[in-house]
């Protein structure tokens, strides 16, 4: 089972590998600040699907749900059964 810390680590790694930042915190705005761009959205969705083990529906994408790693975790992982 992927733990919260593993999920957050994978998300941080994605931001650092793809974005324009030397460091990232879980509270940092990742799109609003320009670290990630629109071209990264699809890959981020794929990563969230992989980590959560389920497909995301467009209806689940709402303003603020990709604001930060904290927001992504709260929206797509918190209070959900995370499969191994």
């Amino acid at each position, binding site marked *: 089972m992927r733990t919260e810390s593993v999920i957050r680590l994978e998300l941080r790694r994605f931001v650092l590998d793809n974005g324009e930042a030397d460091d990232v915190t879980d509270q940092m705005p990742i799109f*609003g600040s320009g670290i990630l761009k*629109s071209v*990264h959205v699809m890959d981020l969705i794929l990563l969230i699907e992989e980590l959560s083990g389920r497909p995301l529906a*467009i209806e689940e*994408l709402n303003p603020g749900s*990709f604001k930060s790693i904290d927001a992504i975790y709260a929206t797509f992982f918190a209070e959900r059964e995370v499969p191994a």
Partner: protein
Amino acid sequence: MTATLDLTQIDGLGVRDAGSVVSGSLLALESRLDRLFVGLAARWQAEEYRFPSFIPAESLHRLDYFHSFPHLATFPVALDPDPENLSRFSSSGALDGEGAVQLTLTAPIRHALTPAACYHFYLQFSGESLEAPRYVTTRATCHRREERYAPLERQWTFSMREVVCLGSASEVEAFLAEASALVRSLTERIGLRVRVERATDPFFRPAKNPKFLFQKVEPVKHEFVFDGHLAIASTNFHRDYFGEAFHIRRGSDATCSGCVAFGLERWLFAFLDTFGPAPADWPELPSWEEIDARG
């Protein structure tokens, strides 16, 4: 109200299948509205430009337009100038039985008809480095293919006035916030039933387009929606999308940009629907000073 508005009975309005013909008092109203929007642009000393009807296809390709909006694109087509080809066309009768042009060989298509007024600015300022925020305005006849058309409301060819800011993210955001507040005050002052709503652009296959998904999670477009169904204006924050595509710099970064856009025919529809067809019943347009004073 829409249900009772009969556009075929409006003086100065001719209905065409994909557009409209405006004259008389209605045309005068459109001109006053456009001057009002130019007056809004003047608050930022925006320089006015007039661009050609065509925009290079290469510029739209650079914006990924043909991937995102192929269903909206319209192209100017010309015949291949070879005399034999022209001869074939001129002797063919030109149209088929249903009125469709029977083209012979066509010349390469390297342009599109302008789909949005502000695109021309990014091409115009390509490669520039801005030492201060730049404010500009233009009016363009825009073209967007649609599944259905309705005069004044949804036309293949329509008039768009835009006021554009190019600058840092904070400069553009400040411009959009002020412009949005002023347009909201304007609609209240006139008495139009308008609500500001979050919106996304009409992408082709949106679920597969990261730009649409990005607009869902990071709202960058807000529309002034008349009577719950018709966007008569919008504000759009492009971030650095156009700045990156056209290498326009603001300081050490790609410039950000944003625009406020007005669909002039749709403003006419909102006026007619709200106040009726008689020009005597239409309210005077306020000045921006009056709108400011009212807060």
